[in-house]
């Protein structure tokens, strides 16, 4: 469509164009004749005009042509004169051109000469530059020659120097000479030997090599001697010489050996002192942790004091090698300490007993959890010390590597990092600690489970208190165990204990509480009868419970009631305590992470903690179940008959009865009193939050039961008014006892009261549909009809006729 339109437009434009071109053609034709004429005037005056003239017959025309011709003649003459005037000018120009001719030839010659000159200069320049290159080459060679000469001179100097120095036992000097020799370009020396003066150089070299060998042997011997003597000054003196001879590894190995022997003797001394000596009572419990600490601190101090020497004389990156040597001794000594610890503390045996206990449940031999306290503490302390020590070593080695790694390839940096990690993670010390922790975890778990079950067994409840001792005790124990695991600085150990705590809380402890709730809230005998009437199932239940009462008596029923309420409070506190515990642990762990644990470790702890906090909601579910149970066993059987007693109060009343009700309230006041009494027990025994939830359940029950009951009644106009009054009193009372919004729960009942209060059936239409205003009807049209039908004075035809 659009396309077509465009085409049309285009066509019409074409059309108009052709129209305009036609127009132009016309105008051209009109103008063509005078133009032609003029062209003839200028190009071929006589021929054309002659024909024209001869054709002319009229005088007037002739005159006109004549005049025209005269004018033209004048013009031509004028033009001719102008051209003639220019002739002189032209002549001068031609003249000057003629004069320029020879000059141009000259310029041509000059130009070719210049070109020749440039070519020559160019080749000259090339020549010169090649000479310069040759000169440069010569210069560098000369420098090399000088260097070589210098080297040879140095070599000679070194040769002489080494010998004198060796003679004077100046090993530092000798080593300096050897170092100079070693740092000479080996290929140059090789070349020199091939050259003319080979014999002299060879001799020097031989001397030097011999001196080098001698010096190496000598220095090693002297160092060994010094090591044997324990002469630190001499040890350090010779230790410094090794790198000059290119024997970094050997030097570090011997020095490490020296330091190890020092450490070993000190450590043995400490261990002997620990086992034999009588330290104070207080430290005796931590004897082995202390001994291990002394060992590790000793090594750390050695590293700290000797790091500068290694850095200065060996350069960066060599600390790792020294520490590798030291760690071997550390592992040996730590093994001894740990072995002694295991033996003296009967560690493995304790573990075995516990293992048997946990596996089979009952066993002849048992360990009092309290007895484990000191050993558990000692183990965590040992691990914490080892972690601290390993962290120290990691920091030192990494910073030592970093100096040299600044320019190194990333691959090498990673390699250094990996070798440090490998050394620290797989050293015997780490392995020993992992083993100790491996035994620690089941022991701590045993400690926790046993102590928790003891706390449960010893549960006491003091009158007037909402919760019993069990909750606080259990959380104290759990927190203590996790904190102890945390104090070991081992993330895996901490996570394992968090997992076990989750298990203890979720299975063991929750089971205890669950079983207490399962025992149910005891009902009183009167209720039992009522319940028995209402349902066969509860009859069976109550008879069972009655049986229990007979043996236990009323007092024990009271105790059981209190116990149930206390358990509910306990459950709530548990769920809160778990959340608190998680928060506390999070902030405690944050401290651990500032000491440099990785991101993966953080994720592990977070995951374990989130499992822990999930148990909190399981306790919440339990609380909910408990409240439902309380509602069904203690509240519902009481409230139901109170509300159904509404049926016995006639609401089909006249003025007289209405007034009498006004004077002596027949039902609602008693109900309120009853509810008040019923709830008073719970208000005293339950925490405010739980009580509030229970009240909410109770009000739900009341509104539901009321609704059912009202639908079974019949009302007169005044009966409706009476019901409205009663409902208002009830809602007013319930509003005072709970923080929940009551009005919403009673919305349906209130609307029923409104309907029962109508003057006429059709009055409902003033409130219904478009007239409802802010009121939202909770009753369906069918229900509205049902309620209207309760009024005996409303005719069913009217109700049927209603359009709702």
């Amino acid at each position: 469509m659009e396309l077509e339109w465009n085409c049309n437009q285009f066509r019409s434009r074409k059309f108009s164009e052709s129209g305009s071109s036609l127009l132009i053609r016309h105008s051209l034709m009109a103008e063509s004749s005078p133009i032609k004429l003029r062209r003839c005037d200028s190009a071929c005056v006589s021929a054309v005009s002659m024909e024209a003239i001869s054709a002319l017959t009229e005088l007037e025309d002739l005159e006109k042509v004549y005049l025209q011709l005269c004018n033209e003649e004048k013009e031509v003459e004028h033009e001719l004169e102008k051209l003639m005037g220019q002739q002189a000018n032209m002549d001068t120009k031609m003249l000057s051109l003629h004069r320029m001719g020879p000059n141009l030839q000259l310029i041509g010659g000059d130009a070719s000469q210049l070109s020749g000159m440039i070519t020559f200069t160019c080749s000259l320049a090339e020549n010169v530059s090649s000479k310069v290159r040759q000169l440069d080459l010569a210069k560098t060679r000369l420098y090399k020659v000088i260097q070589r000469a210098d080297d040879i001179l140095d070599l000679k100097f070194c040769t002489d120097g080494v010998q004198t120095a060796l003679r004077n036992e100046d090993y530092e000097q000798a080593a300096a000479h050897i170092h100079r020799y070693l740092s000479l370009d080996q290929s140059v020396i090789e070349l020199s030997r091939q050259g003319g003066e080979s014999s002299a150089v060879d001799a020097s070299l031989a001397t030097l090599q011999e001196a080098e060998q001698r010096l190496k042997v000598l220095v090693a011997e002297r160092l060994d001697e010094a090591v044997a003597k324990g002469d630190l000054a001499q040890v350090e003196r010779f230790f410094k010489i090794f790198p000059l001879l290119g024997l970094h590894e050997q030097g570090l190995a011997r020095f490490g050996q020296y330091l190890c022997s020092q450490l070993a003797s000190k450590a043995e001394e400490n261990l002997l002192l620990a086992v034999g000596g009588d330290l104070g009572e207080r430290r005796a419990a931590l004897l082995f942790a202390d001994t291990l600490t002394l060992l590790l601190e000793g090594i750390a101090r050695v590293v700290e004091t000797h790091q500068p020497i290694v850095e200065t004389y060996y350069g960066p990156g060599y600390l790792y090698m020294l520490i590798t040597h030291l760690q071997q001794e550390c592992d040996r000594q730590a093994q001894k300490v740990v072995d002694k610890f295991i033996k003296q503390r009967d560690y493995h045996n304790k573990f075995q007993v516990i293992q048997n206990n946990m596996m089979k449940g009952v066993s002849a031999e048992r360990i009092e959890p309290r007895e484990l306290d000191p050993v558990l503490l000692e183990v965590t302390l040992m691990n914490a010390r080892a972690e601290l020590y390993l962290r120290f070593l990691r920091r030192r080695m990494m910073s030592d590597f970093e100096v040299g790694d600044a320019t190194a390839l990333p691959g090498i940096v990673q390699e250094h990092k990996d070798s440090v990690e490998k050394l620290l993670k797989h050293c015997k010390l780490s392995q020993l600690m992992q083993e100790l922790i491996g035994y620690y975890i089941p022991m701590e778990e045993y400690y926790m489970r046993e102590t928790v079950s003891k706390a449960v067994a010893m549960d006491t409840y003091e009158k007037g208190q909402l919760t019993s001792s069990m909750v606080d005790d259990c959380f104290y124990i759990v927190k203590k165990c996790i904190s102890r695991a945390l104090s070991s600085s081992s993330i895996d150990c901490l996570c394992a204990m968090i997992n076990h705590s989750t298990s203890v809380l979720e299975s063991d402890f929750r089971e205890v509480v669950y079983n207490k709730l399962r025992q149910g809230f005891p009902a009183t005998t009167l209720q039992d009868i009522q319940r028995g009437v209402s349902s066969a199932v509860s009859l069976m239940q109550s008879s069972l419970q009655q049986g229990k009462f007979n043996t236990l008596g009323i007092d024990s029923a009271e105790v059981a009631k209190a116990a149930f309420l206390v358990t509910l409070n306990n459950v709530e506190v548990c769920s809160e305590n778990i959340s608190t515990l998680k928060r506390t642990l999070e902030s405690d762990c944050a401290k651990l992470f500032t000491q440099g644990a990785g991101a993966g470790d953080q994720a592990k702890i977070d995951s374990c903690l989130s499992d822990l906090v999930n148990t909190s909601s399981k306790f919440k579910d339990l609380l909910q179940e408990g409240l439902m149970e309380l509602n069904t066993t203690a509240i519902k059987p009481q409230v139901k008959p109170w509300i159904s007693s509404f049926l016995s109060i006639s609401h089909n009343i006249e003025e007289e009865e209405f007034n009498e009700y006004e004077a002596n309230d027949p039902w609602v006041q008693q109900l309120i009193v009853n509810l008040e009494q019923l709830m008073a027990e719970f208000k005293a025994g339950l925490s405010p939050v739980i009580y509030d939830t229970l009240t909410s359940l109770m009000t739900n029950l009341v509104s539901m039961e009321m609704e059912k009951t009202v639908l079974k009644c019949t009302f007169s106009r005044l009966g409706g008014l009476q019901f409205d009054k009663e409902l208002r009193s009830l809602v007013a009372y319930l509003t005072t006892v709970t923080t929940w919004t009551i009005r919403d729960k009673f919305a349906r009942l209130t609307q029923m009261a409104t309907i029962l209060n109508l003057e006429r059936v059709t009055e409902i239409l003033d409130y219904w549909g478009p007239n409802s205003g802010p009121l939202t009807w909770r009753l369906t049209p069918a229900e509205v009809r049902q309620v209207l039908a309760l009024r005996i004075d409303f005719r069913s035809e009217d109700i049927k006729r209603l359009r709702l």
Partner: protein
Amino acid sequence: MNPLSIVWEKTRVNMEDYDYLFKIVLIGNAGVGKTCLVRRFTQGLFPPGQGATIGVDFMIKTVEIKGEKVKLQIWDTAGQERFRSITQSYYRSANALILTYDITCEDSFRCLPEWLREIEQYANTTVVTVLVGNKIDLAEKREVLRQRAEEFAESQSMLYLETSAKESDNVEKLFLDLACKLIREAKQNTLDNNDTANAMPGEGKAISYLSCCSTN
């Protein structure tokens, strides 16, 4: 405390970036290739010369199965004896266990009953266990015949799969099949729970350990 807050918490769980969260724990002797299986699956790597795992490692991978986002929390444990008590503490909360052995190492196969005893003792009764024979790329060194392993797995009512972390054989399948099975079980579980809840209101209903995995 109040019923509304519980409802709110459930919707909040659903608003997180996954529909299901499962914990999978890998166990088995040292050096059978647990870490390599995990790294192959989570990072697509096969690091040669993998050192022994210290304690436990923890990785997360979210996969999509039939349009549902499944977050797999994979716990890679150390096989060495001294870490046993650490790894044991993870059994109870695991939805699935991957019991791994090395097909080229008879010893690692012979230890399986011992591992099963551990599972019996520490794990949840509803846990899904998969037996995995790793290192099938070293077929010429095989010491444990496939049929033998299959029979063993069947006798213990375990799933069985042979994998190669190096060649990436069956690794995806292992974890994805497991995720599918866990989803099925979780759905079944919620269904059962709803049934019991409907049947006996007010009566103490079993609380699912998979309650975090409520269906949408």
